């Protein structure tokens, strides 16, 4: 299939610098090798503390995360926030599967935002992935990992990790070990050998004597036993709950209005606040006349913060009316010269200068590129997360204790941020996690200025206060996907093979972690040029995989056309024979009818992107309207995530991820002028609607059995390049700058 070398193209980075987005990984690497002992699933101190916190009368706690009631109720405490990706249902399936629990008695709730519920399994999973030495990491004592997780306030949801790390590293083991403890207890009570006992639907059964004991009647005694640290897990052939499309546990409350989001929280005497921070990020509040706000009925107070002004009122309407009545002055922090154009100009200059901040790759790229390489420049804008629920947190400081309610992606880090801002002891600060109305990376711990804001307000108010960000604030004060540029350069031999490939990209941070490039080439270079603007940039669903996927998969298409080769065939020729990537690509080609005629005016485009260990190939069928606006007719997607816990929930993630990818490619952009964001609301930050989304999405999972990959994020990256490549096939016009709409207009 390929005549190119077989060496793995992913080489170790040569040097790295700059702020690390997931700083806790670095701490993680340092402890690998610290000890090789037996593993356990929760350390005893954490388990003891957890017991105190969650066990009510007639309830018994197993390994921190599980509670069995004498009434047979099964309660699972999840350290993840289910933002709608269905991960909590998946986690419940995994634990209940190994426990042999009756599914209709299983309930899943958020774990308390306390150190004893820090996520050990997640730490373990990350360490394994970071080091590539899962076996060694599995040998590190849980008590030590738990300590590390607590030190790092690790209760994060992100990186498509819930099922593959927390689920596999902790929840399946907790379920299996608890089942063994219940069997041991039953064996004693029935006076029969444990080997004669089976379990089903929350009962231990002795078939020989036709006797059975309910988990509820065994729980008290079983909870006193020490759990098996390395329980044998089920053979997948025996699964009843995993790999089944169980209905999501959170959905019923989301169709009748009863689900309580952070926005919906209310307590007696509560006031509502809204806020405006310096429009030019980096600026400070210099002056504000508070009188116009105070003149509005219902407004009670105007509070000045260092870089923002907040209005406190009896409700949101007087609060926002009061804020709008103000004419605050802010400094610009010296950032008034920053614009979208100035950032792209700086990117160009950095890349042209050629002094990279981080480099990776292999082979002699310079020699391989030769005298006349093919070159293309791509540019993508800042992207807003546009979670549908704007930020809303309620805080109440009373009798020396601070309570905060709302939805964040890392409850424990939220609590610790409030501890820091308030100056209170951790014991006096409690964060109460609530349902989250979307996040996509926006509610991660590094940019939770709202936690600091609401804490500062609550500390000086005698009543509870709910701080709501207006949509205008949400759009203007994002933690955006970075504006980014890339210059891609390659040479293609007369045998239609790439001889050398260079990806020079400019943005704040290195994208090396997300730049898994599946093609096997003799010489590859990835060079990061660091450029930081005044904007906060952060993880936007699939992190850097969207822009890197767009660059690489668009350029592969350009190279295929330059070589006079079919884009699928061209990719095949650079993939490892027998690889998962090749299988995924072949499957999408077959299912999409690649190579067969399309209706007049339409074109097909293909893209292949791996992210979070999941490989996704996509074929988009699209046309361009007279106004240049794209119309997506059909999307065919093939996914290999290794294995899938809940097929229908996974399908929903790929459907929605694809639409988010198309949405960003077609219409989304945050632009800057004089250092400030130009977009104001969802009326000018344009998201895809029903009518613009593809009528047909054909999605298939290959389930190769490889290590489980993520599912919440990998559906996003291929859509933009597949669409751009389809439009090229339809119109002959290459899209190198996003969003497409901006170019269609002018």
């Amino acid at each position, binding site marked *: 299939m390929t005549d190119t070398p077989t060496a793995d193209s992913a080489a170790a980075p040569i040097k790295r610098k700059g702020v690390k987005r997931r700083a806790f990984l670095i701490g993680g690497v340092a402890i690998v090798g610290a000890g090789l002992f037996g593993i356990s699933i929760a350390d005893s101190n954490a388990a003891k503390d957890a017991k105190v916190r969650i066990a009510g009368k007639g309830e018994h706690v197993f390994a921190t995360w599980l509670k069995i009631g004498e009434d047979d109720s099964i309660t699972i405490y999840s350290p993840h926030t289910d*933002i*709608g*990706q269905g991960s909590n249902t998946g986690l419940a399936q995994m634990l209940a599967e190994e426990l042999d629990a009756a599914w209709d008695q299983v309930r899943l709730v958020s774990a308390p935002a306390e150190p004893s519920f820090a996520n050990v399994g997640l730490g373990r999973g990350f360490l394994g992935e970071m080091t590539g030495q899962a076996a060694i990491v599995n040998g590190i004592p849980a008590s030590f990992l738990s300590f590390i997780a607590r030190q790092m306030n690790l209760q994060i949801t992100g990186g498509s990790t819930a099922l593959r790390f927390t689920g596999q590293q902790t929840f399946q083991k907790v379920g299996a070990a608890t089942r063994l403890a219940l069997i041991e207890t039953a064996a004693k009570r029935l006076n029969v050998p444990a080997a004669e006992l089976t379990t089903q639907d929350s009962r231990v059964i002795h078939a020989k004597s036709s006797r059975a004991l309910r988990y509820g009647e065994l729980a008290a005694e079983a909870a006193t036993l020490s759990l098996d640290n390395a329980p044998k897990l089920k053979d997948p052939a025996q699964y009843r709950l995993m790999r089944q499309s169980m*209905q*999501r546990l*959170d*959905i*019923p*409350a*989301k*169709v*009748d*209005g009863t689900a309580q*989001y952070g*926005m*919906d929280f*209310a307590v007696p005497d509560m006031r*509502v606040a809204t806020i405006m921070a310096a429009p030019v990020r980096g600026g400070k509040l210099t002056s504000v006349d508070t009188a116009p706000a105070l003149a509005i*009925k*219902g407004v009670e107070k105007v509070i000045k913060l260092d870089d923002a002004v907040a209005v406190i009122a009896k*409700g*949101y*309407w007087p609060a*926002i009316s009061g804020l709008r009545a103000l004419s605050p002055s802010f400094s610009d922090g010296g950032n008034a010269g920053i614009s979208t154009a100035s950032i792209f100009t700086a990117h160009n200059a950095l890349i042209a200068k050629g002094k990279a901040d981080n480099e990776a790759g292999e082979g002699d790229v310079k020699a391989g590129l030769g005298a006349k390489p093919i070159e293309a420049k791509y540019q993508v804008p800042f992207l807003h997360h*546009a*979670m*549908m*629920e*704007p930020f809303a947190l309620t805080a109440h400081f009373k009798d020396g204790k601070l309570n905060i309610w709302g939805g964040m992606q890392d409850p424990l880090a939220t609590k610790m941020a409030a501890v820091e801002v308030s100056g209170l002891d951790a014991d006096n600060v409690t964060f109460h996690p609530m*349902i*989250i*109305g*979307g*996040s*996509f990376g926006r509610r991660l711990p590094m940019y939770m200025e709202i936690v600091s804001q609401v804490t500062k307000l609550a500390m000086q108010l005698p009543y509870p206060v709910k701080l*709501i960000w207006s*949509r*205008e604030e949400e759009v203007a004060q994002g933690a955006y996907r970075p504006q980014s540029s890339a210059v891609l350069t390659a040479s293609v031999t007369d045998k239609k093979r790439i001889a050398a490939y260079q990806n020079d990209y400019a943005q704040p941070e290195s994208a090396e972690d997300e730049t898994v490039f599946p093609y096997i080439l003799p010489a590859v270079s990835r060079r990061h040029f660091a450029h930081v603007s005044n904007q906060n940039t952060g993880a936007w669903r699939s992190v850097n995989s969207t822009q890197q996927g767009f660059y690489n998969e668009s350029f592969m298409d350009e190279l295929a056309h330059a070589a006079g080769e079919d884009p699928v065939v061209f990719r095949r020729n650079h993939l490892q024979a027998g690889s998962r990537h090749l299988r995924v690509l072949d499957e999408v080609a077959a299912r999409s009818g690649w190579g067969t005629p399309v209706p007049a005016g339409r074109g097909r485009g293909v893209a292949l992107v791996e992210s979070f260990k999941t490989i996704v190939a996509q074929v988009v069928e699209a046309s361009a309207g007279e106004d240049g606006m794209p119309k997506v007719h059909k999307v065919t997607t093939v996914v290999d995530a290794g294995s899938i816990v809940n097929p*229908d*929930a996974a*399908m*929903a993630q790929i*459907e*929605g*991820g694809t*639409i988010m990818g198309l*949405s960003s490619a077609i219409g989304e952009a945050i632009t800057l002028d004089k250092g400030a964001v130009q977009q104001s*609301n*969802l*009326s000018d930050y344009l*998201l*895809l*609607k*029903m*009518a613009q*989304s593809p*009528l047909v*999405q*054909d*999605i298939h999972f290959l389930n190769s059995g490889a290590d489980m990959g993520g599912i919440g994020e990998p559906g996003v990256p291929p859509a933009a390049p597949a669409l751009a490549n389809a439009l090229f096939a339809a119109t002959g016009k290459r899209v190198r700058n996003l969003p497409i709409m901006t170019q269609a207009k002018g």
Partner: protein
Amino acid sequence: MAIQTSINGKAVALSAEPDTPLLWVIREELGLTGTKFGCGVAACGACTVHVDGEPTRSCSVPVSDVAGKSITTIEGLKSADGTLHAVQKAWISSQVPQCGYCQSGQIMAAVALIEKTGRPSDAQIDEAMTNICRCGTYPRIRKAIHAATGQAAKAAEGAV
């Protein structure tokens, strides 16, 4: 001077200032939090309720405009005995919501569409369902509307 209106079949006298958007009266004065705040400018539809049966973006209607009118929110869709509306049932069977925040508005828009058209075509769905869903649940919303209106074949072929 109270504003008289009817919410979910119950007569109420509202004390809010007349310029207060209906959304905030529903959420803060009446405590019905199923209707959501998304944008405040009628762009996203998360706040959709029915005013005399018409789907209405409540964030952009002053409460004084609804005096004497009949308002239905997501909490008013269930029948008196608690049975879910057919559209709500279809939302569950099609497993539509992800984060769920926009879904009250989506359901209210869908119910209004179905009441008007009976069995909406894909084109009618595209035209009427302009509410934004950032999670990208559009394929399932379409499927659920077809399923709720007895268009099972379309529901099966739609989306996925």
